[in-house]
């Protein structure tokens, strides 16, 4: 513990960085749920797939090659999944969806082992983002600042699209009442597909961004799944604001829990989730009242 202000600034930045990484991952999942009422447990596997694609392409195309191609590859995979599985499971109820995507996790883990082997892969931070930057009196890794910036950019872009554009209005209409939206002439089917694929691309982006910070292993998708679910359930399923709030709560509780209450750290976040669900069974900011 430290009374030094710089220490707390550093931890604030750490918390923010973790929050933004989780935000990139959870926003796709939550918007898909809000629109389609579909729970995709394999979202973490898409993130892992993105990380693997980015790590294996970084050799040939550099970091930025992976940064661009990984989301595209995951989006393509998402489109395949949509037409083979997701579309027909849309009205099957949460349990069937949970189970189909649970099965997908099994398949995805073994598929990554078959394609990329059991050994973890590494990928490097791009040259421009190596080293640290002096900020608010502390030295902070530039790449982590980039993650924070990227998260905020995606958040701003999504907010803008959802609140100011026609597509955004259509999506909001779909979240409120998809049947009514269809009556109004909105091609709901195409909208569902686009949103699902976009959510997948964001998961792929999160994977590509996380690859240089974390280790790229077959079980990384499973490891990130629970934090992601906690984020969207605390925030309230289906809402962009909820994903932001949930990510920030998770990032800050996790980071400051590690500093202030190290012995309780691993239980803390679950206790918080349980508390939120007891007080507000639909999360803090659910999509619909």
């Amino acid at each position, binding site marked *: 513990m430290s009374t030094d202000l710089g220490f707390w600034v550093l931890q604030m930045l750490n918390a923010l*960085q973790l929050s933004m990484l989780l935000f990139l991952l959870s926003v796709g999942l939550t918007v898909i749920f809000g629109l389609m009422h579909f729970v995709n447990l394999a979202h973490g596997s898409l993130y892992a797939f993105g990380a693997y694609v980015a790590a294996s392409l970084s050799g040939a195309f550099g970091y930025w090659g992976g940064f661009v191609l990984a989301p595209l590859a995951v989006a393509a995979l998402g489109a395949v999944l949509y037409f083979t599985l997701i579309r027909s499971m849309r009205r099957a109820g949460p349990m069937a969806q949970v189970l189909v995507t649970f099965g997908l996790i099994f398949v995805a883990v073994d598929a990554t082992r078959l394609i990329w082997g*059991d050994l973890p892969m590494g990928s490097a931070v791009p040259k421009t983002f190596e080293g640290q930057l002096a900020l608010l009196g502390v030295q902070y890794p530039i790449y982590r600042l980039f993650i924070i910036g990227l998260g905020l950019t995606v958040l701003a872009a999504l907010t803008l699209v959802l609140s100011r554009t026609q597509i955004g209005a259509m999506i909001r209409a779909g979240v409120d009442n998809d049947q009514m939206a269809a009556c109004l002439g909105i091609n709901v089917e195409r909208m569902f597909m686009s949103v699902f694929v976009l959510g997948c691309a964001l998961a792929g982006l999160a994977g590509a961004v996380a690859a240089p910070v974390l*280790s790229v292993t077959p079980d990384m998708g499973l490891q990130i799944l629970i934090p992601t679910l906690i984020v969207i359930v605390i925030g309230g399923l289906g809402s962009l604001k909820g994903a932001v709030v949930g990510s920030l709560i998770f990032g800050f509780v996790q980071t400051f829990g590690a500093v202030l209450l190290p012995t309780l750290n691993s239980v803390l976040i679950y206790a918080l989730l349980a508390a939120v669900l007891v007080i507000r069974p639909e999360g803090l900011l659910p999509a619909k009242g």
Partner: protein
Amino acid sequence: MKTTLKTALAGLAISTAMSSAAFAEDIKVGVLLPYSGVFAALAQDIDDGFTLGLETFGADSGATFQLVREDTEVKPPVGLAKTKKLVLQDEVDVLMGVVSSGVLGAIRDTVDGAKVPLIVANAGNDEATGKDCSPYITRISFSNQQVNRPMGQWMVDQGVKRVFTIAPDYAAGRQMIDAFTTAFTAAGGEVIGQDWPAFQKTQDYGPFLANARASGADAVFVFFAGGEAISFVKQYDSFGMKAAMPLYGSGFLTSSLYVNAQGPAAEGVITALHYVPTLDNPENAALVAAFKAKTGRIPSEYAVQGYDSARALIEAVKSGATDRQTLAAALPKVSFTGPRGELKIDPATNNVIQPIHVYETVAGADGLTQKVLATLPAEADPANGCTMPAAIN
């Protein structure tokens, strides 16, 4: 890569020069490794090392070895069920393998009760050769304390007096760090802070790195393995901490199996382990050449553990052992000079006694390599509550 493996019952018979002799012994070996799950890469290395060892040393033993492989999935109940199958149904003469301490804990009583010799080829929990020791369990790999204890004195000798420690919060993490801490403080060093991130749930080590930095320690000593080691080493470097606070640790941190995924971030990290692929001795040169020819990879510490397990088994057979009882009696008496140096088994605990090598990860011609800084003398672990029954025959 793994086409040779896996069929549970399809044993692999390794024939030897004398296999046609009328009195050639056939030894049935039950191999218990986690071929699926998070430790699959380790299992692969141990298995490759073990089969290479049988091929290399088996020829003059006068025996044939038949392997029955079982996947423990890193799950203790599965490991136990597979052990019972190997012991009761396949009636193996000897068991080999076990990567995780949890699985070893689960099968310990069954192995001891059935009086089947077990060669532990990885699991390092101190209890297995401490309070839970058994005359039937011989560990050829390492113990958690053994790998870390010598670093305490060595770091003080290098002028490092104040350290901060970080390790995942689980039994092995605690044992590794506690052994170091005890030796380090006994040598006059001071541990000024400790952090224990949640095991397999921590993706971001930033908060702990900030704690370490704020502590003002001379250096940081850590234990991490596998994917967590990669994340930790990279994040340590990204905060620019290597210059101000050198990173030391248990050698699994920068294991040759994982180090290339860490990249330049691992350069300059100093750790200690019972095996380093760049050890300069003829036995190691032979192993590295043969392992590369067989698999295309450099042998890791896991590969050498498998290799030496095969060697130990063959030495026991050469001394006249043929079945469960005689193998159990002979295994703790083996000693030989292998790639790791001179190995013998401590009669008080049945744990291996071996030198520990301090090494620095440095940039080499193709990728990262290991520069051995010191070889610390072999010493036996304290018995820790192990009371080994009198000789079994």
